[in-house]
């Protein structure tokens, strides 16, 4: 750091997704201390739930792995998982923050040997897979989970069975009696990077998600494609396990819609193009249809659009479908609407329909910033001008590269703020 500035100020980064990770690692590699707080049991956020990234069709774990290595190798980064920031007081250079550490019921003695999960008989709908498939009540979220320690569902911790696991753990890592603790920390600046949640597709009533079994969403589909997902990567539909060979993607499911999210979520077009490749790779005879308003493959992503467009197995229909019906016999979803380039109405049946649902900032709902003077826009994104810095999809809908770019930038702003005195 430059000589005339105080070193050693800590930066609090809230959210351990790609944005928070990037902010933490980039700031720490300049030489600053970082406290990274994540609400979930493991880091990685939304990107860890993805099967591949566009446009390179590569695994997010590859980049995450490097970031985790950078954290492991950097003593300046302290990571708290299952922790939430409850209160922020102060100004740049001198914040006091209160953090609630939820119980994990498994200490960091855990070696991820898996003996406890083997013995556990209780399963929950797997939240990592958006409820598709079941998961043990004591587990790691997924095989690449970092930190590589198990956690226990709090509802399970009170059970008699959970007690039996205590003795079973060869390293004595399990403690169902763990309780929440509250930490108070002094930090110099705060970066809010709590990311996004997929828009609740049930709210998009005409599309029947929740009513029609074979209407899914883009994030659920990511898990379906993933080898560690509920189907082991096989693209099959929920109602009867049929292979998904006629599939439709519906863009702007919730986004660009005054009834839902008025803004554009930016990534969904590209995400559907990417997911179309999943289907076409798994089933070379599959037919994919994409219903869209505008295809938004900005800048060099245009090349990806061209690449996907070159596939004759993918049809593009400029249309926001009006509704989805369900064929009562086959369970096929039937997409109904008007092709705006031909004026022709359609009612097309598919094996499965994937709604390209948009991004809703967590800062609008479950991760409001517990500080005074925070600037939000009307959608709940944390914008510039307030007390706390924000980055990634907490500020605007972004793709991964955009989130990394913004988070690298915010790392510098956080350094500046941390070294600013009152």
């Amino acid at each position, binding site marked *: 750091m430059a000589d005339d*500035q105080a070193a050693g100020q800590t930066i609090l980064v809230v959210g351990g997704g790609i944005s928070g990770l990037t902010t933490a690692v980039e*700031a720490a590699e300049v030489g600053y201390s970082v406290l990274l707080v994540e609400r979930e049991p493991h880091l990685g956020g939304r990107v860890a739930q993805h099967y591949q990234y566009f446009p390179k069709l590569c*695994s997010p774990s590859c980049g995450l792995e490097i970031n985790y290595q950078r954290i492991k190798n950097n003593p300046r980064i302290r990571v708290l998982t299952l922790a939430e920031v409850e209160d922020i007081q102060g100004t740049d250079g001198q914040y006091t923050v209160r953090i609630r550490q939820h119980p994990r019921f498994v200490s960091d003695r855990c070696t991820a040997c898996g003996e406890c999960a083997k013995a556990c008989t209780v399963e929950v709908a797997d939240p990592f897979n958006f409820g598709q498939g079941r998961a043990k009540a004591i587990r790691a979220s997924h095989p690449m989970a970092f930190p590589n320690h198990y956690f226990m569902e709090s509802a399970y911790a009170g059970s008699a069975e959970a007690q039996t696991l205590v003795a079973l753990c060869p390293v004595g890592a399990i403690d169902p009696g763990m309780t929440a603790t509250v930490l108070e920390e002094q930090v110099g600046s705060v970066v809010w990077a709590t990311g996004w949640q997929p828009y609740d597709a049930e709210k998009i009533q005409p599309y029947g998600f929740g009513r029609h079994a074979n209407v899914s969403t883009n994030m659920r589909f990511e898990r379906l494609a993933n080898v560690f997902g509920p189907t082991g990567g096989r693209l099959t539909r929920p109602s009867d396990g049929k292979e998904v060979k006629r599939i439709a993607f519906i863009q702007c499911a919730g986004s660009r819609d005054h009834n839902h999210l008025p*803004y554009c979520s930016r990534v969904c077009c590209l995400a559907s193009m990417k997911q179309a490749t999943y289907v076409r790779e798994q089933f070379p005879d599959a037919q994919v249809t994409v219903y869209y308003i505008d295809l938004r493959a900005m800048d060099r992503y245009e090349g990806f659009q061209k690449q996907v467009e070159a596939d004759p197995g993918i049809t593009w229909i400029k249309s926001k479908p009006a509704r989805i019906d369900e064929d009562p016999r086959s369970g096929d979803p039937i997409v109904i609407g008007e092709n705006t380039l031909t004026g022709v109405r359609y009612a097309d049946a598919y094996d499965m329909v994937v709604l390209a649902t948009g991004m809703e900032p967590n800062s609008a709902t479950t991760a409001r910033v517990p500080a005074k003077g925070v600037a939000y826009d009307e959608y709940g994104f944390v914008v510039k001008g307030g007390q706390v810095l924000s980055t990634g999809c907490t500020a605007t809908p972004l793709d991964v590269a955009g989130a990394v770019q913004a988070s690298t930038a915010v790392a510098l702003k956080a350094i500046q703020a941390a*070294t600013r005195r009152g």
Partner: protein
Amino acid sequence: MEAKKIGCYICTGCGIGEALNVAALEKVSSKEQKIPVTRTHPFLCGTEGIALIRQDMANEGVNALLIAACSHRVKTDEFQFDTPLLDRVDLRDKVLWVQEVAGDKTAKEDLQMAAADYLRMGSVKLKKMNAPDPFQDDGFSKDVLVVGGGVAGLTAAREVAATGYRAILVEKSGVLGGMVARMHKVSPTTAPYRVLEENPVAGLVAAVEGESRITVHRNATIEKTQGAPGLFDVTINSGGTVTTQRVGSIILTTGYNLYDPAKLDKKLGHGVSADVVTSLEFEEMAKAGKIVRKSDGQPAKRVLFALCAGQRDKNHLEYCSAACCTYSLKHALYLLEQDAEASAYVLFQEMRTPGQMEEFYRRVQEEGGVIIKGDVEKVEKASGGGLNVSITDKLLRGQEGLAVDLLVLATGMISSVDTVDPNNPSPVGQVAEEAAKYVLNLDYRQGRSMPELKWGFPDSHFICFPYETRRTGIYAAGPARRPMGIAESMTDATGAALKAIQVVESVTRGAAVHPRSGDLSYPSFRREGCTQCKRCTEECPFGAINEDDKGNPLFNPTRCRRCGTCMGACPQKIISFANYSVDMIGSMLKEVEVPPADDEKPRILVFACVNDAMPALDMVGQQRGRLSPYIRIIPLRCMGSMNLVWIADAMSSGFDGILLMGCRHGDDYQCHNVRGSALAETRLSKVSETLDRLQLESDRVKMVEVNIMDADQLPKVINDFAAQIASLDPNPYKEF
């Protein structure tokens, strides 16, 4: 430096103690490998186990640690000690978890042999490992050079200075502000995303000019950039005055050039009339205060804004310039704000107003802006002035004619960094001499230019690590990096400022930057062994190595990213790191005990890239996948560091097959060092010569691309290869 004293610690937890004959392993360590301190512990990563190691370090003088337990990727916090000499032998994840533990006698024997071999390899590795001595230099500078004085450059300089560092800003023209200085207003950046904002240039220029930490050079170009991060010597020609400045890092913010409208398809009408203008010309008109027909100065009442002019088009720019949709909507608003009764038509292909800009799109429609999806087909001068434009109207589904006063063509952005648009070798308005084509004129053995990724843009990993270029310490930002709008350029420039500061802080500590951040090792070479073959200088993905007149390599440690590609390239085996060398890996593989052919236990050497293949193998373990017990895995920093001599060594040591697991290469490469795995593949194509010389089948050696998520496929890949090797005769060299 004190003598190395190795302690070997074998964990017996996680089932290791039950599955293996630990006493035999202790013997391998203490007797065979002569490790002075060898201990076992039932829970090595627990407090007691760690204390045991610390005690030995304190009391026994142990200063090098061989930890035989689990994968190097787990328990890293626990196994952190005050010594750089540490190696992890993975008995759990890559032995126990992938082999039959409860199998028959043969299986048990195989398990034990694998564990012993890994322990042997670890011992040798640690013996060959030296503590890195961080590279230092008295002349390090932490100043940041910013090249290009547009919005991105001004922002970068301001942010560098605001963090307490000095910046030198070089601008080729006489004024700061770049393209944006020619613009009227900017699109909304803040809630409620409806109102045009003041041009930020004036504010930025004032901030930069008022900042004592920033030195501005106008009318200046870079004649030469020599050196390396922390030690760049940059020759600046500032209006004829030539100076050389030492800087630590460089931010490239040279912005974009506009695609030459003269090259557009004729049907777009450029040149037909003065009333066909580019969007930048329209900006200038708005800035000047009045939007008029250029041909006769009459007020413009009807204006057609045609998007994607020469963009998203394989005959022109194949990509999208990202910002034009929003720019054009802004232009429509200029017109409607000048005259609410005017007609503003936005002719789009795909309306791209991402994020909250959707609200701005709404605003422009609210003001009466009319959107039309379609293409311009023909432009003619109208008799009474203005233009008649024929369009294909995709929504009205037909050909339509529009009478307009102006046609505004949204032409695209071309990177200004060295490389120019492939279709357009001389950028707009620039007929430059050869040298002027290169912004930095790098004095690098691999050339003066910044290597491009695609379409002339110079980054290297645009998803996960968008700032990385193949020239360490040089970061592009703004539209020099990829097409982007003003607000994003400012964010981007701030990020680049962080990277520029980060690199000077790292190199002055002797540490590497991404992807091996913090690595203190760097390559050195034995000059007398060099044959001046230049492979290292040619192959380094980051152009880190220069050459002297005789063709000897000149290493620039602060440019180096520690991938080891030079080491892999060197046929003389003279390039090494303190903790990674040809000899080290060669010695490791030779340490594997190869059973005689009669035992029918082939040995297969697996070289696995530490970035993707090793984690993937870990996941095979976590999933309890089954791998052939005959494999022996050696992690490599990068496939680029794979030296062919190891292939020969392995074959002559009796290995029956060699499997190399590197990252995907090609256009969508995943190699963190850009070219490492591709180079390994190229080298390997020559391996058949080696095998022929040894009279061995060439399919004994195979390279596969492994993705980090390939855990489900790896067992098949490995076991199929093992089966294929088993089908061959045993390596005849086993007997020697």
